[in-house]
């Protein structure tokens, strides 16, 4: 099978950002994304499933340029103020034109 490399960007962010994050990711060029929910801990303490809801875990398979653009945007608009974590890794996909 003919596979092509793309980037998988995973973003964990506090629940209240869900709508904004989705808008931003799409605006910056992602053609799709998947959202699950996680609880966890990090620099800003513990996050549980109650009042504010569990954190958003968004995955998006994108081209390298789009990944860079989203990461740059996170760095300026999310990282300074919001509980947000992101990591990037290369993945192989079968239909590269989709992403």
């Amino acid at each position, binding site marked *: 099978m003919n596979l092509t490399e793309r980037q998988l960007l995973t973003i964990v962010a*506090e629940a*209240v950002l869900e709508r*904004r994050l989705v808008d931003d990711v799409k605006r910056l060029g992602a053609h799709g994304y998947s959202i699950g929910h996680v609880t966890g801990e990090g620099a*800003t*303490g*513990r996050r*549980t*499933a*109650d*009042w*504010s*809801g*569990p954190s958003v875990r968004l995955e998006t398979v994108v081209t390298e340029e789009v990944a860079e653009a989203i990461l740059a945007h996170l760095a300026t608009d999310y990282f*300074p*103020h*919001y509980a947000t974590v992101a990591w990037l890794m290369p993945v192989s996909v079968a239909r590269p034109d989709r992403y």
Partner: protein
Amino acid sequence: MRRVVAPISDPYGLFQRDTSGVIASAVIDNLASAPVIAFVVAAVATLLKADIRLPDGLYSILSTFLLLAIGVKGGKALGQARLAEIWAPLLAAVVLGVVTPIIAFLLLRSAGRLDRIESAALAAHYGSVSAVTFTMILAFLDASGEPYEGFLAGLLAILEVVGIIVALSLARGDGQRWIEGVSEVLRGRSVTLLVGGLVIGLVVGGERLAPTDPVFVGLFTGALTLFLLEMGVVAAERLSDVAKMGWRIVALGIVVPLINGSLGAVAGSVAGLSTGGTAVFATLAASASYIAAPAAVRIALPSASPGLYVTASLGITFPFNIIVGVPIYVAIAKAIT
């Protein structure tokens, strides 16, 4: 919910005379109600490191249900109210929505020594309301047989929204973010479910709603009890943060609701509400939002610290209000009506 038909006259001063005794027994009745005890039990269990948390998902199911049910109940009552009874309380609600966040803001800036942004963030919480605190005063009045105006739930949405908008404006922040924050409130679930419930209650009306009563009326107090169980866990988890906050903020978390509550009582009685209705108004003014306001503030004022405003609202003011505040606001209402 009983609707006040005739204004309550108290010719023999029964309420005024032995206020202290009445309050004492009322405080005990409130303290020993199922929701309050559930809150305390869960808080204690959590402090003892026991896991009494409700399963994931139940929290948001309960809060959705409570908001809708409050709205439906309010809508039903609103449908039976005459416009003449409503306009004054409605105006008073708007005034409170403007005044209470400003008072909170000024106190937090001066006595609280917080900067403009943090003060505005916190003021948004004290300017808005807590629907659960609202239901606690209703349960309290129901239990003590004190009548009140049922349509007050109809003002909840107004009080919830106005205070946040005013406080976000006090921050003099980024205009774009202000818009996003306000839209977060207006389109967020806590307002839409409340307003949606109001419309359902208003349009469908009490008679046709009867088949839904086993759910929206019957389950209410039990659902509230479960909800407060979870709130007890949440509040207890905040306790270590409370300890870390300066004493000034802790004190203001009690002083601000007392001041706003007194103002609310005055506003309610000027608006012609009954003693019960005045107590409700006082409680609303005193209550601090912990759903709508944090979401809006997080969006509009990202640099404000949620560790401060959520802890103050959930960890200090909420427990204070439901345990001690409610009987106090009832006493104030009795004293001035």
